[in-house]
């Protein structure tokens, strides 16, 4: 289809060249000197733009994080399995972005999923680890595994959910982050010869996960909202 479209465009250009241009050739309104001047001006604009691009400060550009090694990437992909076995802290590349502690009265904990903004987050993973003691404290943390698109790490841009605690109710309000990026690619004329310069982990894409991790006293009963996918850790 693209070739046909190109063919049609070429035909239109040929039509322009042969019919319209031939008919209007005698009525040229721009003198040769003006053409020279305009073309030189255009060339100057291109050269100034080129110089400007290389001179522009790039410090405030988005600094993409890179995954350190293949092991980190692979293990981060096994996050579900490792969390379920209580080994979340052993996973390289998984970061804790919030940590808080609350005092629980009684032995019943209710988990609520709250919404903020227009976009409804219908489900959220919550892992619960029962502590060996009944110290009456709820320890809430949030972990994020690498978010990588085309080898660019966007993990830092993930906003941790708000966690609040009132009357034995732990309310989790997740946030959805929308990010728009702009990037320039090499022209296809250059790309054709640049294949060997690609990095070893080209086009690595991984949609990381966000995991709310709770440590609760051993005797606490948990009641959770429908949208919360509660899983118990079994070390």
């Amino acid at each position, binding site marked *: 289809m693209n070739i*046909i479209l190109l*063919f049609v*465009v070429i035909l239109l*250009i*040929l039509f322009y*060249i*042969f019919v319209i241009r*031939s008919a209007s*050739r005698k009525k*040229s309104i*721009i003198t*040769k000197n003006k*053409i020279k001047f305009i*073309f030189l001006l*255009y*060339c100057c*604009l*291109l050269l100034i*733009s*080129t110089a*400007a*691009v290389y001179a*522009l400060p*790039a410090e*405030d*550009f*988005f*600094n*993409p994080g890179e995954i350190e090694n293949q092991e980190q990437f692979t293990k981060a992909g096994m996050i579900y399995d490792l969390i379920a076995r209580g080994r979340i802290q052993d996973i390289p590349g998984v970061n804790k972005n919030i940590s808080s502690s609350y005092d629980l009265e009684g032995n019943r904990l209710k988990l609520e999923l709250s919404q903020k903004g227009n976009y409804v987050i*219908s*489900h959220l993973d919550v892992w619960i680890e029962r502590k060996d003691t009944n110290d009456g404290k709820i320890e809430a943390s949030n972990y994020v595994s690498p*978010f990588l*698109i*085309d080898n660019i790490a966007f993990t830092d841009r*993930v*906003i941790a959910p708000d966690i609040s605690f009132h009357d034995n109710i732990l309310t989790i309000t997740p*946030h*959805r*982050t*929308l*990010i*728009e*990026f*702009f*990037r*320039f*690619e*090499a*022209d*296809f*004329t*250059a790309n*054709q*010869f*640049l294949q*060997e310069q690609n990095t070893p982990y080209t086009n690595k*894409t991984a*949609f990381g*996960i*966000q995991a709310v991790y709770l440590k609760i006293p051993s005797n606490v009963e948990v009641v959770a909202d429908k949208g919360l996918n509660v899983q118990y850790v079994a070390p």
Partner: protein
Amino acid sequence: MYSSGYNILSVAWKQYRYKLRSYLELFTGLLIIQLLGLVLSLGAVSQYSSGSNILRISVKSYHSSIILIFTFMWIFGLSILLTTKQYMNLNYTFTANRSSSLLSDMGFILTSSILGGITASLGGMPLRVIIYLTVDHSELLPGMFKPPVSTLATGIWAAILYMIMIAASGYLFGIMVQMNKNFALIIPAVLFFAIRMYLDPYIISLEEFYTKESSLLLFTGKIILTGLALFFLSLMISHRLEVRR
């Protein structure tokens, strides 16, 4: 007819310089088409979005491919235009033959390809400046915003080579049309039906012979040989044309 090679070259050089001055208006087409390409490129050439329920990322990609493709079309049209009667008549200003005319046309095409290749490849630079000034810098991925000079130079060189080959094809097409006007319909129709008749693999193989070549040196060799072959064919056909006239 000239008997010595020196004379042909000397006449061709004079014709070339004369054509450069006379055909100057053709470069306004290059400027217009590149500015049009630049405007169209401002809307992002490609865009993709992906993510999960907590993070959605949209990446808008820019490059100067539209400018390059438009410039390729321009050189194709220009090379056909050089074979039309209106432009061919300029050759009669000099005591010349077909070989010197072809050599001067080759020179003009080469000059146009160099100018077109450089300006088209640098056409992405004003685009970068405009995007830099209009978007939040923290949303700009460094990537190829400042392409390495070697990448830029490679792109320019490859663009020039592509333009030479496209121009040589256009020139041959134009000469064939001058020989027989029916070719203006027959050649595009044959190409069209070749695609429709599932001859794509042959066309794709031919296309990949050039576009999949990752060695710049080999690519240069392929283009120069193809270009010379196409111009040689044009010369042969135009000689027959001259005899008929």
